[in-house]
């Protein structure tokens, strides 16, 4: 599998470390239902069969976090961007 890193270009997936689902957002620890929200954030996943947004760290390259859009059924990658940009999207 080749991952097109926005900085380095297409690189072997072996150069990256995997974090997982890019969609959970860290909740506000001061929220009244913070415990419930953290349970959701830490443990519950959509785990879709198909389009998926996930985080990879280019540890043997530019050492930046990359958000990858990949199909979990075919492994086809449709888009990549720096993770910080993904957060803002």
């Amino acid at each position, binding site marked *: *599998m080749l991952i097109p890193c926005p900085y380095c270009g297409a690189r*072997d*997936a*072996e150069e990256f470390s*995997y974090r*997982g*689902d890019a969609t959970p957002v860290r909740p506000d620890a001061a929220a009244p239902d913070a415990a*419930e929200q953290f*349970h*959701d954030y*830490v*443990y*519950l*996943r*959509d*785990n*879709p*069969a198909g389009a*998926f947004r*996930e985080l990879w760290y280019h540890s043997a390259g530019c050492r930046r976090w990359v958000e990858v859009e990949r199909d*979990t*059924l*075919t*492994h086809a990658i449709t888009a990549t961007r720096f993770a910080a940009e993904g957060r803002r999207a």
Partner: protein
Amino acid sequence: MRYSLFNVIVNGLTKNRFAERAWRDPEPKPEYDVLVIGGGGHGLATAYYLAKNHGITNVAVLEKGWIGSGNAGRNTTIFRSNYLLPGNEPFYEHSVKLWEGLEQELNYNVMASQRGIVNLIHSDAQRDVYVRRGNAMRLAGADSELLDAAQVRTLLPFLDYDNARFPIKGGLLQARAGTARHDGVVWGFARAADKLGVDILQNREVTGFTRGPDGAVTGVETPRGTIKAKKIALAVAGSSSRLASKLGLRLPIESLVMQAFVSEAIKPLIPGVFTFGAGHFYISQSDKGGLVFGGDLDGYNSYAQRGNLPVIEDVLEGGVALMPLLGRLRLLRQWAGLCDMSMDGSPIIDIGPLPNLYLNAGWSYGGFKATPASGWCFAHTIARDEPHPLTKAMRLDRFRTGHVIDEKGVGAQPNLH
């Protein structure tokens, strides 16, 4: 028909002309007391023990393909109870006890063979860890034995003992562990459940659910019609999140792929199973002679049910480093299965989380060994609407309350379990 030596001879001589089907292929009834979704080992064992232990025989197992087409037919067939944590170990030890009598119980040759498992030790730190594990096993009534390097050498003389990075310093042996024929286990439970009146419905994918006004699950939709049931039990392993999403549920599970490999057949070489945890490799030899081995998960979420090359290389490198003669053999086949990796690496057997619903999931890459005990305890949970004492720690709300069962201590990162 009860299988026996006499039977085999008669059917052999009459070229199976009078042999019965092993299980029926019935039309579904409009309603069942219990519908089990998923015709893998766990679903079929659950149906069998519902009928056998609890007298609930108006039961059907729904399978989208053929029974055993999932991980039940793709695993490396090892059973063992060498776990560490109290939430897990007594359950897996119960499973080993059930394996020990499974052939007589099912009247089926599942080829369960207690040939032992050795976890290799390469450092003092690893020895400490395995000593602790071995003691935990003994506390739960399982067997374990610490071996020194010389003892391992008599068992497995063909390993590289003086590897500079991973010299072999000893091993933890569980002699009662072993392997069984995975398809045989599926067929054995299917046949025995069918004999007790369970309907096994193949080629019936569950595509949706019918719900009552209170949200209760009242039945399932399949491309060939709706089937009602009083209780509905999910046992679909790698497809758990997909099916649960049709009920609006999100589970603490991610699906990842795990590969397995088999070499050409050779004369008997490996006496049991051994694992090279430090190098991500484990191996045994099938009765046909092929060396059956595997290693790590393909480390990212996937439903592809096929593996990628980097892990193949990694597994083979680990294997050849430890067992150089492996390099002389040809690889015959390679395949992959869809693992329901839970957030703490341990399974979930529970009531709910919706009315009439029961959940069996999160077996990760280690559910084959659990097949009999999972069926035993899940059937109890369904029949009595309370968790079995052995699976009390395996409930879904452990993630909410913080009582996770994290054998490896890596946290909620499924690709690392």
